[in-house]
């Protein structure tokens, strides 16, 4: 059947692209592109964790201004990353600084903050008030309560946010090729622009694989970081999710 033949031929072409030695060598080889994508994504998620996680922890701990912040962060999700990337790259003092890393980093941090901020905040608000009170009654200071009680209990939520953000960032960092930061987006965009669907698909496949590895890895990390007594409530596997008990917060949470 013609369609089946086309499909087989396409799969064979993709396999051949992925196994061509030249595509694995040098500064535009797959290992280098993969590493650059990982490097950028890692930096972005750490940046977003510091900013979004930090704000979420403070707001969750004090219990003030949380809904405003969460809604503002969620509204920021509507900003298209490509538009933001273009906007940053047009500013002379950002432009293509650090080989395009800076503009890509800033645009992607904006993408990664909302899920982390929202989840951290929700995780903090989900900490049982009695546990918090008990900790205070035992003489723990505010900082101690945050570090030793609230943060560990909020970790499953926080990590779910990190995982969502990481998958989004890995997928979206392909746009960085537009600001001269070559990563796996280079074969994807080149392939699309030249009607080379094999190259575009092979690049996209590698991005998808990277995203899957990140999802699985962070899922495992999420389990390890979850305090033992909470772990048995966690469903296993890829679909591991975290549910907020408060309906209003459940609506805002990302898993």
């Amino acid at each position, binding site marked *: 059947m013609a369609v089946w033949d086309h499909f087989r031929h396409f799969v064979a072409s993709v396999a051949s692209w992925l196994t061509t030695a030249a595509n694995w060598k040098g500064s*535009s080889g797959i290992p280098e592109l993969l590493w650059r994508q990982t490097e950028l994504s890692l930096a972005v998620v750490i940046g977003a964790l510091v900013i979004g996680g930090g704000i979420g922890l403070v707001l969750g701990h004090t219990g003030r201004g949380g809904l405003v912040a969460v809604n503002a962060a969620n509204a920021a999700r509507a900003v298209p990353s490509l538009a933001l990337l*273009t906007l940053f*790259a*047009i500013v*002379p003092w950002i*432009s*293509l600084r650090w080989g*395009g890393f800076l503009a890509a980093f800033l645009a992607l941090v904006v993408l990664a903050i909302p899920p982390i901020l929202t989840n951290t905040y929700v995780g903090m608000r989900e900490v049982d008030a009695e546990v918090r009170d008990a900790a205070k009654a035992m003489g723990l200071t505010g900082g101690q309560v945050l570090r030793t009680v609230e943060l560990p209990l909020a970790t499953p939520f926080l990590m779910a946010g990190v995982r969502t953000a990481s998958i989004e960032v890995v997928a979206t960092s392909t746009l960085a*090729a*537009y*600001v*001269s930061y*070559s990563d796996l*987006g*280079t074969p994807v*965009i*080149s*392939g699309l*622009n*030249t*009607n080379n669907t094999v190259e575009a698909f092979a690049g996209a496949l590698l991005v998808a694989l990277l995203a899957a590895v990140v999802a699985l890895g962070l899922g495992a990390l999420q389990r390890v970081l979850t305090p033992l007594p909470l772990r048995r409530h966690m469903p296993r596997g890829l679909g591991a999710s975290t549910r907020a008990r408060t309906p209003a917060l459940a609506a805002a949470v990302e898993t």
Partner: protein
Amino acid sequence: MLLRRSLMTVAALGTTAIVLASCSSTPSASSKPTIKIGATNFEEQEIVANLYGDVLSNAGYKVKVESALGTRAVVVPAIQHGQIDLEPDYAASLLGYLHGGKPQAAGTQINTAIAADKAALSSSGVTVLSASSALDTNVFAVTRATAAKDHLTTLSSLAPYASKLILGGPPECPTFAGCEPGLTSVYGLHFASFKSLDEAGPLSVAALKNGEVQVVELFSSDGNVVSNNFVALTDDKHLEGADYIVPVIRKSVDTAAVTAALDSLNSKLTTDAISQLNLDVTANKEQPAAVAKTWLASVGLK
């Protein structure tokens, strides 16, 4: 890059049905017939279709401008089958389209491109008139300051300086024949490095302005070159296709008077002129029909 015009809108294929329905009568060649002018979903084409319409209507013809007919894959069959009589097209890209989408060697020079277009279209009663001086293709641009400092006018004149300059272009540039490999093989240019940018869009413009790259690939006629006061280096060894705007017309309506009217337009229609018209439509949000009328009056063709 090659795909810019061809990929314009597949969805608009549905429009063909409307054209088929609305263009059923065939004009007779004896008296002055109504000339149906078609254009794809591309501002530049709509502007030129309106220019054609206005000069022909000034010459006493009844005209009907059918714009936004989708892609070349809609418009060319429409003229081959007599559903439209006239359309603006691009000599080299049209030739590639007529040969299954593959760029043709004849497409690199305007005279050979038009001759080959005519040969391919003749059997369906269609021909191509003389080209305008308006070129819509990929160009390599530098800032006015760089051009002045190194006396740059052509791609050939870049040769002594290329090794100190950074080239910017879309991500496929290092492997795409019409970009870096062509600059190396045809012009012997070896740039200091390459930076991947968008496809002749805002990021490419910004990178050249900010000095991140010194040479960047843009489109000749979309207005970016004109509005930013860049200098588009002349492709003196014909690396890119000779995509000059040409009138493609059915022989049945192509009389001496029609040719004369379109030639009078083609002699005034330059790359700078169409760039400004494109800017008026895309940046200044004016209507293609309106900018066409204003410009014709300004060059004394009204």
